[in-house]
């Protein structure tokens, strides 16, 4: 049993119990050689599994997630269960409340096994920026699972649970999904509540699912999406219509942006994406080349705006009310400086400094405001392209998963790896990654599908058709 749908079916058919599934998942998670989890909530998971089984016995099961073990990225708040955002700053922090997505999964009956590793505050593309541990790619433990939701990806790819929620600010769901052979969906900005999600860059952050299949991702999206009165930026758009998931791609117009075939791209990746385009044509879609001329500014724009917002969002970690507090500060200034110097890791400090600089008097016009203007141009590129096509197809990452430690000393090289996933966040679009091929070394290649704002339905049905046609399967090493 691998997928969420299979687990749900087995539970519905009475072939297994949530308690049995949960115990098995916990057992594997405790023996996990890949370092997916930071925290396992064994008593909490077992209690919700028993509650789920009781509901099912009484005929009150609440839906496809009832009793299904899932994991949550450790920047999503869980009441009473330690939530660290991968940072020393929040080591041991037990939130007094649930994130809206946590509450919605609980309401849907899901069993929350624990919290998965991430780059500190979501800042990174390899999960190597976690303050606590490195996570390995279950498909090849010498390589990165991607990031920042690398722990979530590893927890699903290693089959320690049936799905996970990650967060995606510049590709942090889609790129780990691509690196671990999974489906990862970043919903439209405003589609899923951000309440209770540790903020990195508020105008870019979204919560979304990582799962084995498109159908599983859709099921998870359905459970968490929709208006939340606690998030003023959450959208009133109607929920995604999942009845169209299997409706096929006949007549669908697919755009292949020429700017997304970047210099330095792995030729196997480029070939695999073009092959996926050909597959869509064979299924009745039409494919045309499109242009998104401002794509080349996306990385610079992102690495101004995201640090600006991060420098602001991380101001609350000051050692006064919660989180790490330095010992014996001699002054208020020392309290702030030492608490933050000790609590934050190098990548977080780098981004706080970048953002503070880019917002400072005399520089904000050249950096923050200019970046906002370019962001508007990037958004307009997509508005224009989506008048001609229904989805945009590209690679998720220009390269295959790299070896652990390989890019750690070169932040700029690491930033470049996000070049294909960043524009989606800047434009607020739904973006999905799914496996589209297997490289000669056996590693998965991810294809990215982008859709119009709040048109997750078209993205999902395209992905569903492609997934069915390609029939790719990836298994973790160790033959679990």
């Amino acid at each position, binding site marked *: 049993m691998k997928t969420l749908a299979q687990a749900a079916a087995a539970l519905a058919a009475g072939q297994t119990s949530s308690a049995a599934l949960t115990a098995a998942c916990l057992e594997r998670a405790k023996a996990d050689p890949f370092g997916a989890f930071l925290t396992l909530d064994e008593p909490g998971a077992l209690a919700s599994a028993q509650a789920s089984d009781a509901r099912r016995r009484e005929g009150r099961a609440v839906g496809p997630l009832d009793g299904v073990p899932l994991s949550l990225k450790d920047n999503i708040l869980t009441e009473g269960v330690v939530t660290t955002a991968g940072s020393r700053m929040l080591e041991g922090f037990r939130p007094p409340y649930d994130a809206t997505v946590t509450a919605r999964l609980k309401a849907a009956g899901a069993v929350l096994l624990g919290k998965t590793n991430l780059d500190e505050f979501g800042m990174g593309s390899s999960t190597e920026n976690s303050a606590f541990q490195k996570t390995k790619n279950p498909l090849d433990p010498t390589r990165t699972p991607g990031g920042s939701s690398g722990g979530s990806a590893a927890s699903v790819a290693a089959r320690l649970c049936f799905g996970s929620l990650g967060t995606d600010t510049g590709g942090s769901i889609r790129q780990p999904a691509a690196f671990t052979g999974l489906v990862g969906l970043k919903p439209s900005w405003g589609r899923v509540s951000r309440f209770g999600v540790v903020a990195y860059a508020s105008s870019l952050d979204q919560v979304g699912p990582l799962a084995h299949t498109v159908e599983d991702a859709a099921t998870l999206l359905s459970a968490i999406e929709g208006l939340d009165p606690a998030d003023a930026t959450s959208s009133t758009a109607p929920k995604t219509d999942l009845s169209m998931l299997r409706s096929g791609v006949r007549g669908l117009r697919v755009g292949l942006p020429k700017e997304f075939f970047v210099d330095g791209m792995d030729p196997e990746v480029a070939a695999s994406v073009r092959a996926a385009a050909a597959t869509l044509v064979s299924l009745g879609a039409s494919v045309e080349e499109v242009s998104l001329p401002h794509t080349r500014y996306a990385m610079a724009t992102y690495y101004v705006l995201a640090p600006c917002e991060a420098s602001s969002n991380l101001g609350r970690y000051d050692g006064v*009310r919660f989180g790490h507090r330095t010992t014996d500060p001699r002054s208020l200034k020392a309290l702030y400086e030492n608490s933050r110097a000790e609590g934050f890791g190098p990548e977080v400090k780098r981004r706080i400094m970048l953002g503070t600089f880019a*917002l400072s008097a005399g520089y904000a016009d050249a950096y923050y405001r200019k970046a906002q203007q370019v962001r508007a141009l990037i958004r307009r590129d997509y508005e224009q392209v989506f008048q001609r096509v229904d989805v945009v197809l590209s690679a998720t990452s220009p390269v295959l998963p790299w070896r652990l430690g390989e890019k750690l000393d070169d932040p700029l090289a690491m930033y470049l790896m996000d070049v294909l996933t960043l524009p989606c966040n800047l434009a607020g679009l739904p973006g999905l990654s799914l496996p589209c091929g297997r490289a000669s070394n056996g590693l998965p290649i991810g294809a990215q599908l982008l859709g119009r704002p709040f048109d997750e339905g078209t993205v999902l049905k395209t992905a569903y058709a492609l997934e069915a046609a390609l029939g790719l399967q990836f298994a973790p090493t160790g033959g679990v």
Partner: protein
Amino acid sequence: MPRADYQVVIGLEVHAQLLTTSKLFSGASTSFGGAPNAHTSVVCLGLPGVLPVVNRHAIELAIRAGLALECRIANVSEWSRKHYFYPDLPKGYQVTQYEHPLCLGGRVVFDTPEGEKAVRLTRIHVEEDAGKLVHEGAASLVDLNRAGTPLIEIVSEPELRSADDAVEYLKALRDVLVWVGVNDGNLEEGSFRCDANVSVMKHDATTFGTRCELKNLNSFRFIKQAIEVEAQRHVELLESGGVVEQETRLFDPQRGETRSMRSKEDAHDYRYFPEPDLPPLVLGAGDVDSIREALPELPRARRARYVTSLGLSAYDAQVLTADRAFSDFFERCVAEAHEAKPVANWFMGELSRLLNETNTTVGEVKFSPAQLAALLRAVKDGVISGPGAKEVFAELFATGKDVQVIIDEKGLAQVNDDGPLLLAIEQALAESPKNVESYRGGNTKIVGYFVGQVMKKLGGKGNPKRINELLVEKLKG
């Protein structure tokens, strides 16, 4: 006051707490006091993951203030983050409005000995308050009860030219805000706070001098004093060849001086940018109109009307409009009694006295406008005497009983029928033939003596006017 060849230039920034029951971005209570950090929620504590949700009532009150001060209300305004580190600021930034405030322009009109003046406003914006620090020995403790309380900041143009005008401006501004129910006007509790930007310039100068921002001005007296000593400091500095440094200064009421708190070099770089957690504040087509329609007549307009339409003196108009509820009740009573001056007399006299004595407000008054009108009618019709009316009013105030019932219970009805009056008069005349003679001899003043005697016989209940008339008739014989 500074030397005659200098004038002082003042711009004021007033922070007024909006009278909402919950905070600007969370459901936590805004009540004053309470155990430290009792009135907080995860949102006002700035915990990881929290998001702000705008309190619509706060926006409504801010718009009401803007309309009362003749501002233009922006259909679209924007929230911004203002960054600085201080332990009373949980998130490391304050959510405020920066580039696109809710209210633009507007003015405050006030009276001065030189006549009516108006000072223009730059803007009014909405923002959240910070918490406070409590210092206990070596420790500083953080109380976030006030953190997130909704404020409006009312920024004036630098058009004030004296400390006295500044105080009159503030009083008029406070009057309007309290009148329209936006603010409680309490300086001591800090729900109405003022910072003053002060500079001096020669009368013939064309540019303003360098300004200093004064803080810690928590009474009208301190505001006047602080502005005056600060202006004096500037003049002395300039006259001794020095320059004024732009800085933030704290007023020390004990020493009656200002001292530097933060120089320009130490000024915060607030790194404002639009708040990504809140969409722009967009007002619907009817939002402002419905608030405008519900806006009460403002105190200055009402005072003018009391003088022109009700024929009251400017003094009466001022006293009667000192409090909105008092004035509203006055209006209802006038409408019922169809005359203003007698109602005004009752309000400014007995009613004010009794409210004061019993430490109650007009909202707690037990009688209705119709009952007061009935009392006035009883006086006018001679049913009761003036002193009797006071007694009735006191009872009316205490119990809210029907006026006629009070008159009956207390036996205050005057004897108006000639029969019993004449009977008493005959007796009185018969008892004092000497005085009758005296009257007839030309001492007409003696009639007062007889009125007293007759009243005595009638137990004080005779109608004095009629007694007088009948007595004169009889004495003339």
